[in-house]
């Protein structure tokens, strides 16, 4: 009888421990619970972190391609604008190289820059406007919604 008492006591203790674990486990696994429990910004950030972890798993295992899927407008905007910012930096770098090289007419046709080199003069040939930058000719164009300058053949 003592034995039975001991066994049942252990069994009950084990089960009680299990119960204590279940809610904890659920809170960790299901992000929404923490939203309901706390409305503070921290909780929201917590959701974001957890959601992200979950997302990462999904991306890794199944639908990586879906991530970049084209039509989510804002996502596109973000990407486009980030590209724009990156392009701007690249253009600035290209610009410096250009200035350093000091080869006024040696810039290859098709080169795209976001800022014109110093000392350009506007010229119009057959109704088309160009910038004459020391013998290199640039035509203005839109690349996406960015204004850029493209090196072209001497139109004169």
């Amino acid at each position, binding site marked *: *009888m003592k034995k*039975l*008492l001991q066994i*049942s006591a252990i069994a*009950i203790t084990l*089960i*009680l421990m299990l*119960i204590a674990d*279940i*809610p904890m486990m*659920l809170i960790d696994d*299901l*992000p*929404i*619970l923490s*939203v309901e429990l706390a*409305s503070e910004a921290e909780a*929201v950030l917590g*959701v*974001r972190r957890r*959601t*992200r972890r979950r*997302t990462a798993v*999904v*991306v890794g295992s199944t*639908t*990586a391609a*879906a*991530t*970049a*899927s*084209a*039509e*989510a*407008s*804002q*996502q*596109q*905007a*973000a*990407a*486009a*604008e*980030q590209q*724009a*910012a990156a392009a*701007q930096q690249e253009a600035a770098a290209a610009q410096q190289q250009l200035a350093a090289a000091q080869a006024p007419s040696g810039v290859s046709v098709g080169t*795209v820059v976001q800022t014109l080199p110093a000392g350009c003069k506007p010229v119009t040939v057959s109704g088309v*406007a160009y910038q004459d930058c020391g013998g290199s000719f640039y*035509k*203005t*164009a*839109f*690349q*996406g*919604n*960015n*204004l*850029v300058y*493209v090196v072209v053949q001497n139109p004169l």
Partner: protein
Amino acid sequence: MNMLKFKTVVPLILLVVLTMSVTIFTETRAQTPAVDPAATEILKRMTNYLGSLKQFSVHTQNTLEDVLDSGHRIDLDVSASVTVSRPNKIRAERKGDLVDQVFYYNGTTLTLYNPSSNVYATEPASDTFEEMFIYLYDTLGFGTPISDLVYSDSFPLLMKDVIFAAVIGKSFINGVKCDHLLFSRPGVDFQVWVSEGSKPLPLKYVVTDTTIAGLMSVVTIMSDWNVAPAVDDDEFTFVPPKGVQKINFMPF
């Protein structure tokens, strides 16, 4: 006698405990689906309302988080005034760090005009918003922020690949009480604040790129919503001012 008591009590406790734990488990599961229908229901109400508007104008403030090569975190801002006339007219004036331009679309042509550089480019365009935006993105290479506002039904677009949705709570944007919703799809978290009441309009968007460590976001605050603006069809067609230079779009 004592022994008999234990023999009956122990299994009874076991049974109760097991039932309780199972109940706790299933209840929690039932209450927390990954996509909360309460969130999608509010989003649906918003997209239905937006789709029902014949004309509207709105002011948007877009903030793009960026990191300089030096490692410093900066914001790039674009302020825009958008006027939409369904089914296929739009005019958007954008000014900011990256742009200073006016976009015109009148159902047959689209034009991008840079007033500060005194240049513009124009292209023939499809007669629907959807195809025009696809052309803009795929062929001309530029994305249009919040173009989903313009679609007649953006609900499927916003819900595409969504694996998690929740109502975060109530909040105030520019003094207006809103439902704050969160939608997540692989790589992108999307938050939207929808005003309460009979005009469920979006007042704020936050789109977060979750594929990068810094979790960069684009934040859009929408204000001055006018759901019945006085609109003249002429304002969607670009008339080149004197001395403006026509340029081309580079193929993307």
